[in-house]
Structure formats: C-alpha cells, structure tokens
C-alpha cells in the first residue's frame, strides 16, 4: 500500500476506526441474526415475540414450507435466467450508451439531447396501466422479456456510469489511442471497459439486485404461476387474507403465524446475493488505471 505517516494520532485513529466499523457492522447484523433466529423458531414463540438471537423451539418448518413447494425450484431457475439475461442486456446497452454520453458536448453534438432524453424518464413515469398496455400489445406477457426489457435501462445507473467514465478514464490515454488510429469501438473496448472495472462491478451488482428483488412485474405480467420468478413466488407463500370476512378454516389458521415464514424468505432471497457480493468486491482493486497506462 501507500506510504503514510505512522504517527501516534494516526494509530489512535486506526483503532478508533476499527471500533466504529465493527460497531456499525454489529448494528447491521444483529437484527439479521434475530430474523434468522425467528426463521428457525416455532411459530408460537415467534408470534409472542420471545425470540432473541437464538431460535426458540428449533424447527425447519418455515424453510420446508418454502423450499418444499414444487414451484420453488422452477421459480429459482426463472430468477437466475432473469438475473443473467436482464443484467447482460442492461449492462450491454447501458455501457455502450454511457460511453457515448461520456464524451464532451463539443466532441459529440447530440449528447445533450440524449442525456436529457434519459434524465427525463428518471422523473416522469407513465404509470402502471399504460406500461402494462405496451407490454401486452407487444405480446410480451408470460415471457421473460416482460421482466427484462421494460426495466433494462435505469437512467440513474446510466448517469452513474457516465460519471464514472468521465472521472476515471485519463484523457491522455484516450488521446494516445486516437493518435494510434483507434475508433470509438476500440477505445470503448480496449480502454474504457478495463479501466472502469470497479464501476462496472458496482452497477452490475445494483442491476442484479434489482432483478433479483423485483416481484411486482412478475405478478402483473405472468399469468402462469410456473413463470413466476423467485421473488414473486415468495410473495405467494404468505397467507394473506381479509379476515374480516373469514369462514373458519383450520388449514389457513395453521399458516397464520407468518413471521417465521417471512423471516425464512428474507434469507432465501438474500442468500445468492451474499454469495455474489464478496465475489464482486474482488473487482474493487486499485491500480488498474496505472497498469493500463504502462501498457
């Protein structure tokens, strides 16, 4: 790493720093441990809220109920497909667009118009009904495209990418490439992409999380339960009923202590991200710019 003065005050700061970070991490993880404990607890204890950080009446019922459902595996596969396809399409389109938009107004005449074209959609939305009509008219309902295409371009992420490109790619490098006769495609491919790995990793992560978590579009656009992605499927597991008009039913009542099931869902839903995220973090490495410049 870089040289720095190992003064006393810095050492004190370092200790303090570790303490603060560990404390924040603890604050973030304790509620999660509590939820994990609830998910492994008996429903009676969960309803009474007597579960702390350790399960009471340990049981796997909540997980059995979720994972044991025959649609679970299918939903998981649907979700994986959605994440892979959705993230690839999003990233491909957004990275290309971000490259063009990262040029100066001077170098790229239409830039401003394009930029506002995207910014506008960040703030103005047609709403559920017309979007649904467009998707239906295109015949996308009940297909994976209804889940990946409408949300493919996030203007927010696009703007972040543009700014990452602008701040992290040294102008000198680009000019050198132009002198060597490179065209835009080559510059994009050879210079922008390798240099912006941390940014690409970040935005890819956001996009993945978005696709993994979205459930509403699955509910609206999929007629067949078999096409539900996991997040939509998980929504169907909890019994939701208007009890004010209920006729008595043992089966329903048994399922009522939903707290355990909801807690289990959180972990089932978050688990893949827990696996992916540390992997993504590997891309947050310094020195790529330096390496590229030496080339």
């Amino acid at each position, binding site marked *: 790493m870089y040289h720095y003065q190992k003064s006393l005050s810095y050492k004190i700061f370092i200790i303090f720093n570790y303490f603060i970070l560990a404390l924040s991490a603890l604050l973030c*993880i304790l509620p999660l441990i509590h939820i994990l404990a609830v998910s492994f607890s008996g429903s009676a204890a969960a309803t009474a809220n007597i579960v702390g950080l350790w399960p009471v009446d340990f049981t796997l019922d909540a997980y059995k109920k979720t994972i044991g459902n025959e649609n679970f595996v299918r939903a998981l596969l649907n979700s994986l497909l959605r994440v892979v396809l959705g993230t690839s399409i999003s990233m491909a389109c957004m990275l290309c667009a971000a490259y063009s938009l990262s040029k100066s107004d001077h170098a790229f005449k239409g830039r401003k118009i394009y930029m506002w074209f995207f910014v506008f959609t960040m703030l103005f939305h047609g709403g559920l009904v017309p979007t649904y009509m467009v998707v239906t008219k295109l015949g996308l309902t009940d297909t994976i495209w209804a889940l990946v295409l409408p949300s493919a371009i996030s203007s927010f992420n696009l703007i972040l990418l543009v700014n990452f490109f602008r701040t992290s790619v040294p102008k000198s490098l680009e000019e050198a490439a132009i002198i060597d006769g490179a065209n835009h495609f080559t510059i994009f491919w050879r210079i922008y992409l390798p240099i912006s790995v941390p940014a690409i990793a970040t935005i890819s992560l956001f996009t993945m999380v978005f696709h993994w978590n979205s459930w509403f579009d699955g509910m609206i656009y999929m007629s067949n339960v078999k096409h539900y992605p996991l997040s939509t499927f998980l929504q169907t597991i909890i019994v939701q009923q208007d009890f004010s008009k209920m006729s008595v039913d043992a089966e329903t009542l048994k399922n009522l202590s939903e707290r355990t099931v909801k807690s289990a869902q959180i972990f089932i839903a978050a688990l893949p991200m827990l696996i992916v995220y540390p992997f993504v973090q590997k891309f947050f490495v310094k020195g790529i710019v330096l390496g590229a410049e030496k080339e």
Partner: protein
Amino acid sequence: MQTQTHLESQTVINKKKKLKKNGWNLRNTWQLHAMLLPAVIIVFIFQYIPLFGLVMAFQDYEPWLGFLHSPWVGLDHFKTMFEYEDARQVIWNTLIISSLKIVFNIVVPLAFALLLNEVYIMKFKRTVQTIVYLPHFLSWVILGGILIDMLSPEGGIVNRVLVSLFNIKPIFFLGDNDWFRTVVVITDVWKECGFNTIVFLAAITSINPTLYEAAIVDGANRWQQTVYVTLPSMLPIIIVVGTLSLGNILNAGFDQILNLYNPLVYKTGDIIDTYVYRVGLLNGDFSYGTAVGLFKSIISFILVVAGYRLAYKYANYKVF
C-alpha cells in the same frame, strides 16, 4: 533545458497533427449514435410511449372507456389535492423527512466509505462492506414488526439501554410526534447506507494513484491526503449522487412510513404517498394517483435541473 522545452512543444504539435489526421473519428459521430441506439429504443418503447398515460391526470379515467373516451376533467384532480385540508401538513412532512434522508444518506455513506478506505485488513474490510449492505434486503413489512418490538416503551431493547444509561423515562418512539421523524430517518439510513457506500468506494478505487504519490512526495499525511486528494477526486460523484437524489425530494419512503405510522403520529408522519394510498383504497381509480404523481414529477424535475445548474455554476461540473 531549452532543447527539452523545444522537444516537448514539438511532441505537442505532432500530437495535434495526428489528432487532426485522425479527425474523422472524432467528427464522424455515427459510432456514438449507434452505441446509443439500443438504449434509446428500449427507453422509447417502455418509458416514452407509456407517458401518454399521463393524460389520466386530466381525466376521470374509467378502465373500460380507456384513454380516448374517458371524460375530461381538466385540472380538477390538482385542485382536489390543494383543497385537501391536510395538504400543507402532508407536503411539509414529506419535505422534512425526505430532505433529512437525502442529506444523511450522502453524509453517512461518505464517512463510512472514507473510514473503510483506511482499513488495510482486506478480510475485515470486505466483511464490513458486505454486512452493511445486507439490511437493504429486508422488507419494511418485516422490519416494521422488529422495530415496534425494539422501540417498545415496555421492555424494548432501545429503551432499556437508554433508561439504564441516562436514567430517563422510556420513550414511546413510534407514538410520539417529537420522535417519529427521527426514527424514520435513522432507520432508513441504517437500511440503505450500504448502497451509496458502494458507489463511493467504487469512486475511491478509481482515483488515479499517481495523485497520492504526488501528495506523498509533497509530504502530505494521511489526513491531508484525504482532504486534498480523496475528497476533491470524489466531488464529482458526490455532486452526481446529490443532484440525482433531489429527484426524491417528494418521495419520503412509502413502504417504510406505511409500516411504521399510526394515528398517533399522523401529524408528523403522514406523507403524500400514504395519503394517496388511502385515497386510492376508497376510489380505486388511477386518475388521482396519476395527477399527484405528475405534480411530484414536475417539482422533482425542477429541482434536479436547479441542482444541475448549481453544480455547473459553483463546481463547474456537469452532472449529465
């Protein structure tokens, strides 16, 4: 010495010549247009075409009549919004809660990213980074339940700690108008700060290491490096995140408030979105919600444009 300058100016001239020679690449921007095309098509189809739905805001939209035949009501829905007795209260609550959230959701993650940057035990750094991102995956439905328990004036963990530390009377956080907004802002920052932390960390990683090397040569210590290299290098991304979050000035967090608020704190906790939600439960039509949404969009748009102008004027940075 002189020859060196001469040589340097010579290379500059050469560079410029070569640049000119290769000028078609720069002037001929069809490649740039082409690279934008897929994104533009998708956005046009799925974002711009549905915008016709905004006409609903000026109609009494009846689903079976559609956009063409539903009766027009002009600005009636907008009038209803401002004639609503509690409009001032609801808008005010929204503004206070959302602006506090905007500020703290930048300051806290920024501090966090800077602190994380001082950690050289990679395992520790990555673990903390992962953990603070985790609360993002929790839904407010389940968090609502947990918070009610944790903040309970009768034996909730927070009150127990406060009572034993400061010897005060237990605080009814979720039922007290003096505390409700604070709780909302703190829990939101807790849940979402991992998101911006990642953005800021990515920005820190992208800083050109030569800048640090130069600073070290100048004898800057770690603190000075942070103030004179890291922060200025991050300024663009901070401005970007700040300007973009201005778009949320009228979104105070629907899911969160819906799960935490209650009649005791309507006075400080009721926001535009929860109000529209309650109206929607009664009249089920899309028109009023669309009208309020359009109003929110216009205000947000004005603010984002203002933020963009200010950033350009004072920081000389173009966000878009």
